[in-house]
């Protein structure tokens, strides 16, 4: 099946999506209407049995809707704009300038992969989260989509090098064709090593997924009345039965979680390849076992990276990497991931390559000094200490004595966390990057290009002012919107801000010392 001759140049006429979507849309609509359909069948059967018209209507309506969707959707690229027209009753025309295109993402769901189609999602960094405002070209043949992406990113066609050699188990492959293009200078930066899946159980997403599955599962079981209900006569058994049950259940649970997490990791990251096209300067990423995703990031838009090291990963010497992309915020974090949970060496290596410099990732961070350290400890110990005190008082007043255990445990854990957090704190300024690290359970090291900084926030509570600390955030238009260094000594903070973006902070320094009433606040350099 051939498609309209698009993608040859950047200019195209209004055109429809691929004809194969005629097949996809009705199926999708049918799936969406499934509950209604079941209802229709049920009722028409009950009401006398032979009223087939209703049943036919029930099928015909979604199918017609799907077909209409195809005929009412069209797009074109002209005059430096990409425009998308859709809708039957509510006509909707989306249009955006080509140079506003920040990311292009190709996603292929299973049905689409069977038919060799893919969805092109054009990311423009809009703040709108509404579904209707997304520029999705749903259903283009893969080769056309690739060419379109290349056009959109002002680049030559990007071939994916022998994409599926490792995907032996994948149900469907892309139908051949586009891969025949001659390969432009593309450097493979990273390929997934299935052994990395061992990191999957250590991330929180794995745990969350498992908990969700367990929750739903137990509810369903409960519904059928076969829930794992144990009737224990407390008078007879005391703690015996629940404890032994827990002893069996916990390892099973942990094993199950690990398996699920590994499976999830492999499904979403199968065939993960990160490549860098040197000619046009953009990063291409492809992954996915069932639904394949391909993301392209423009070099200029990648303004920094964030290395996440949740405690589990950190203990296993792993980490993950995501890009701070101008115009992509946290909601789109899926498309900014650069390295899935993987060994630390891999992560730092890729981070260095993405940033074009190793220092932001490897260099020592300047610690925030003893006062920041004290603050970490006081923040951890004062609340837990109070709780412990209350617990002790409660025990004295006649509560069960095992509460004492909690009273000891809480501050200990708090202190351990505080020590770790204090150790993690740090920031530095390399030649082109502002680097900050903080956190313990979710430690993050973020490096942001100084040219991408669009403002500074200095935030300090009364306690922070008393110890001469401030929380410095460099705001930016991507990622989590800012890179924050916690509890930086005031002088350091002002110094960093002034050197990172020359000519911005300095002009206010003199005022600063006048404006502040409390002496602890004055930047010594002011």
């Amino acid at each position, binding site marked *: 099946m051939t498609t309209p001759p698009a993608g040859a140049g950047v200019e195209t006429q209004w055109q429809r999506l691929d004809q194969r979507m005629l097949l996809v849309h009705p199926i999708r609509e049918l799936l969406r209407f499934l509950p209604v359909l079941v209802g229709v069948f049920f009722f028409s059967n009950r009401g006398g049995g032979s009223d087939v018209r209703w049943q036919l209507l029930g099928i015909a309506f979604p199918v017609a809707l799907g077909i209409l969707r195809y005929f009412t959707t069209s797009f074109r690229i002209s005059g430096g704009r990409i425009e998308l027209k859709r809708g039957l009753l509510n006509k909707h025309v989306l249009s955006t300038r080509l140079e*506003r295109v920040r990311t292009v993402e190709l996603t292929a769901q299973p049905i689409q992969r069977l038919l060799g189609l893919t969805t092109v999602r054009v990311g423009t*960094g809009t*703040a709108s989260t509404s579904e209707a405002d997304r520029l999705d070209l749903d259903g283009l043949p893969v080769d056309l989509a690739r060419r379109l992406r290349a056009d959109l990113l002002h680049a030559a066609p990007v071939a994916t090098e022998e994409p599926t050699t490792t995907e032996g188990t994948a149900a469907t492959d892309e139908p051949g064709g586009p891969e025949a293009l001659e390969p432009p200078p593309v450097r493979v930066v990273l390929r997934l090593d299935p052994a990395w899946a061992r990191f999957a159980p250590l991330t929180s997403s794995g745990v969350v997924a498992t908990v969700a599955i367990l929750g739903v599962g137990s509810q369903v079981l409960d519904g059928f009345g076969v829930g794992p209900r144990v009737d224990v006569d407390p008078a007879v058994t005391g703690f015996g039965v629940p404890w032994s049950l827990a002893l069996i259940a916990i390892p099973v649970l942990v094993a199950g979680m690990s398996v699920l997490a590994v499976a999830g990791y492999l499904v979403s990251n199968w065939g993960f390849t990160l490549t860098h096209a040197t000619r046009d300067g953009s990063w291409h990423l492809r992954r996915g076992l069932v639904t394949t995703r391909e993301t392209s990031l423009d070099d200029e838009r990648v303004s920094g990276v964030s290395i996440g090291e949740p405690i589990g990963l950190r203990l296993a010497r792993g980490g993950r990497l995501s890009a701070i992309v*101008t*115009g992509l*915020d946290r909601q789109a974090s899926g498309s900014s991931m650069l390295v899935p949970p993987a060994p630390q060496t891999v992560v730092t290596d890729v981070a260095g390559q993405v940033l074009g410099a190793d220092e932001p990732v490897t260099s020592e961070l300047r610690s925030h000094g003893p006062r920041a350290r004290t603050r970490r400890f006081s923040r951890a110990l004062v609340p837990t200490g109070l709780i412990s005190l209350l617990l002790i008082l409660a025990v004295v007043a006649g509560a069960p004595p095992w509460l004492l255990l909690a009273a000891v445990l809480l501050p200990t854990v708090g202190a351990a966390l505080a020590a770790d957090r204090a150790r993690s704190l740090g920031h530095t300024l390399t030649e082109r990057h502002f680097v900050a690290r903080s956190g313990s359970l979710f430690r993050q090291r973020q490096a942001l290009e100084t040219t*991408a900084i*669009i*403002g*500074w*926030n*200095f*935030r*300090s*509570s*009364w306690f922070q*002012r008393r110890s001469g600390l401030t929380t410095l*955030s460099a*705001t*930016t*238009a991507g990622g989590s*919107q*800012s890179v924050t260094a916690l509890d930086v000594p005031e002088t350091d903070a002002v110094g960093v*801000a002034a050197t990172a*973006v020359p*000519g*911005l*902070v300095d*002009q*206010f320094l003199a*005022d600063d010392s006048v*404006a502040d*009433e409390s002496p602890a606040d004055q930047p010594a350099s002011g």
Partner: protein
Amino acid sequence: MWVVGALLESVLLLLAFLLIAYVWAPFDVRWWVSVLVVLALATYVAVVPLWRYAVHRWEVTDTAVYTQVGWWTRERRIAPMSRIQTVDYSEGAIERLFGLASVTVTTASAAGALEISGLDRELAQRLAEELTVQADAVPGDAT
């Protein structure tokens, strides 16, 4: 303006408290608790707006906007003129009562909006215009 704002806040809080304490009455409330609450709110009204007023500062130069806001937690924000995306002028209900207005300067980052509140209306309008002109003068998409 902040006095009135704080006053309204406190009165609402007090009403909520009274409602919970005496109408809904999930547990017994001693009279001295009520007195303490009233005292706390009164201090809030008396102290915080003045404190706020003493802290709040703003400044606009040729290349940047700078604000300092807050009372307990104090935040200073700096945004370069070249990265300003929108300039909002708004008058809240309480502000209108006093003929005041606020100017909000947003950048491309969700973390970087600067609000200068409680400005004299004319000054605010002038400021908003000035900022718009200056921000316009810089080419690029401000990210």
